[in-house]
């Protein structure tokens, strides 16, 4: 009985907690559970969710990606620069950041898979390099419509309307980034559950040596995971630029940690105990709800981090206490 209760709370505790938080906020503020507010929450988490999916993939192969946040920063300013500085068409504006994401992923896997630097350290170094590049590239200034350069001349271009729609538009009343996010979550969930590539990534992360001795090409699989992580971070960067309508410097630095928090909260969803895309999504949702609800309750902005941290501790405690008991 006691055992069953523990099992139940381990599996559904995270979802029940999200439900309780929802009830709490909707009791205290009647505006909380409205359609507009819910879409607001989802839109606010959509970018972080993309970054978090990328990190989930790298964690799935038992890696780590600290460079995702800086990749967001880089791709945000580059996509803005493509329009404002070079007046490129939409397709280029989207393709170039994604190529950059792939390159970051390849750089990470070169360091981790080939040179065999531990993932945490390699991506830490890459994080510094990428954020240095993006600040050097922009000389530390945000990129906005017809911005003024230091020599007094003006930038030729403006942000494309079609581009801005990606971040601000609605389809059937649903914000477009939310639609993209839901598609990405479902798509990646199906990828991990039903495809050979997904299964191979999970197996590689579960035990690389056993996977290798079973005939998997583990180096290739890990490389692909880091590249995927880079691509998802790049999509996050594009969405960010489209959402705010400019290329903000250091846009992604806070996102790295928020995304990580979402991923680790996700470990506890459905008692997965491992990185999983659905969990990551609910982790991001929980964080979004908390920030939104506390803002409505006029909790001081800085204090929300205390709550976020506490929730993360709670989720991790549930996961790791369980793991310690069920030592395989």
């Amino acid at each position, binding site marked *: 009985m006691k055992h069953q209760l523990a099992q139940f709370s381990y599996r559904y505790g995270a979802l029940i907690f999200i439900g309780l938080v929802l009830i709490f906020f909707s009791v205290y503020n009647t505006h909380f559970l409205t359609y507009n507010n819910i879409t607001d929450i989802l839109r606010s988490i959509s970018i972080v969710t993309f970054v978090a999916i990328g990190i989930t993939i790298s964690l799935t192969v038992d890696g780590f990606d600290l460079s995702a946040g800086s990749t967001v920063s880089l791709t945000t300013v580059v996509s803005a620069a493509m329009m404002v500085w070079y007046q490129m068409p939409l397709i280029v504006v989207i393709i170039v950041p994604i190529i950059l994401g792939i390159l970051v992923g390849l750089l990470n896997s070169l360091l981790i898979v080939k040179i065999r630097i531990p993932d945490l350290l390699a991506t830490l170094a890459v994080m510094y390099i990428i954020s240095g590049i993006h600040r050097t590239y922009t000389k530390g200034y945000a990129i906005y419509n017809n911005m003024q350069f230091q020599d007094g001349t003006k930038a030729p271009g403006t942000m494309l309307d079609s581009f801005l729609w990606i971040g601000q538009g609605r389809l059937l009343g649903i914000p477009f980034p939310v639609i993209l996010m839901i598609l990405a979550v479902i798509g990646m969930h199906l990828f991990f559950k039903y*495809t050979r590539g997904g299964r191979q990534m999970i197996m590689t992360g579960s035990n690389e040596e056993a996977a290798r001795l079973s005939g998997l090409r583990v180096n290739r699989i890990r490389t692909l995971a880091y590249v995927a992580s880079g691509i998802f971070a790049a999509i996050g960067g594009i969405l960010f630029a489209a959402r705010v309508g400019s290329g903000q410097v250091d846009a992604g630095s806070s996102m790295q940690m928020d995304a990580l928090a979402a991923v680790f909260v996700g470990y506890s969803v459905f008692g997965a105990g491992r990185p999983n895309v659905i969990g990551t999504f609910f982790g991001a949702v929980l964080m979004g709800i908390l920030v939104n609800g506390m803002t409505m309750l006029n909790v001081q902005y800085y204090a929300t981090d205390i709550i976020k941290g506490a929730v993360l501790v709670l989720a991790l405690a549930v996961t790791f206490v369980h793991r310690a008991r069920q030592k*395989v």
Partner: protein
Amino acid sequence: MSNSAASTRGSLQMTGIFKSFANVPALQDVAFQVNSGEIHALLGANGAGKSTLMKILSGAYSADQGSITIDGQPVVIDSPAAAKRAGIQCVYQEVDTSLIPQLSVAENIVLHRITASGGSPILNWKSLYSEAEDILKRLGFAIDARKQVSELSLAEKQLVLIARVMAEKARFVILDEPTAPLSIEEAERLFTIMQELKAQGIGVIFISHRLPEIFRVCDRITVMRDGKRVSTLPTPETNASEVVHSMLGRAFEEEYPKVFAEIGEPLLTVSHLAAGRHVQDVSLEVCSGEIVAVVGLVGAGKTELSKLLFGAEAAERGTIELNGKRVRARTPQQAIKAGIVLVPEERRKEGILVKESVLHNLSLPMLQKITSLGIISGRSERKHGDGLIGALGIKTASDRQLTGYLSGGNQQKVAIGKWMETNADLYILDEPTKGVDIGAKRDIFKVIGGLAQQGKGILYLTCEFEEALGLADRILVMCDGRIIKSFAYGAASHQDLLYYASAGREELV
């Protein structure tokens, strides 16, 4: 020894010990007694309960029922610290778990002075080193007390642990398979030390699988089977075949159901294969339907050989041919494609994925076959997996069970089973019965026999000579990276194999 005075004075007694794990009884009404100044062997197949019993004695587990007395006085052993206070010390087989590699030999020997609470908080290095050196000298160990433990060999590490036991003034010492990783000379030295401990009035409990050494050094032998004590006899009153019979509950021949398959054309031909120190020059041949055992002591190079053949490590010289075609596998993936598969020694680390389900483990090498357009067909995966679970008799609650929760034998069946439908020609099995209980062992032997009957070639690497003698059509003895002797089925004895595996002197033939 048989009077009651000896059994209470200077003796440690365990009576009526019961222990269960998750309602599965591991020990049932076990009694065990060891005297001061005695070397007492504790024998049993894997899963017989001897390690559980010793873990209770050393405080790692607590018994559900039963009592422990020393010199007739009841003692409560509820933690490793309590066991040490009672004078019971254990040298575990995995020496590295008990040593701190960054510290010196001396610090490791007198570790209790560093970890103990009370006393001066400042370490007196001079007395610490002199105490450790005294103990080393008394035991006659030639180890530099100032050397860092991480630089020591496995045998030396074990000596450090024995020295620690002396430093902590043990009255009863448990040696858990201490000779398994040792060379013959090192083992000899250990036996001398054991005699010395005995002479000092220490009661030694000796766990080993090697019968010859048990009969040489032990005063009494206790045999356990299925969580119960079967017998305790003075060594002169019993013999090896009787002991084996009580360990297994049946005779040797029943243990190894030898299959004579039709031996066909040469399948695998290895010539002058070499890589590093461990594989110096290996040539061998395996025919279809043939079970070839490669026996050797730990460190002979068997595992390295298996990794070379499987492409998991790179060969420096030599050629490998399968079905007359040259195999140049530089990754396991290429070897599998060529038709060579490996069941590796380190089952939990290399053979299976403990955190994944039985089903996913079984389908791992088969993913290509059960996917179309990159999508895994759940139906064929289940059909394939459940078929193997049935065919191999894998005991699991469901195919979704995490493989790590299965018993060692069933994990091994998964590790072998995943290759069964890959159309491999050559199966390399590296110590496939390590940590496998006796029932599952026979199942595994049957599976191997079945593979031979299908015309597969089997290369069976083991340091369990009995298995090689019981199963193989041909036995190759490996020593220091070379194959030095070959025996046909029935042509070799245990002693022959041990002789060649340890001495490795070809010219004495």
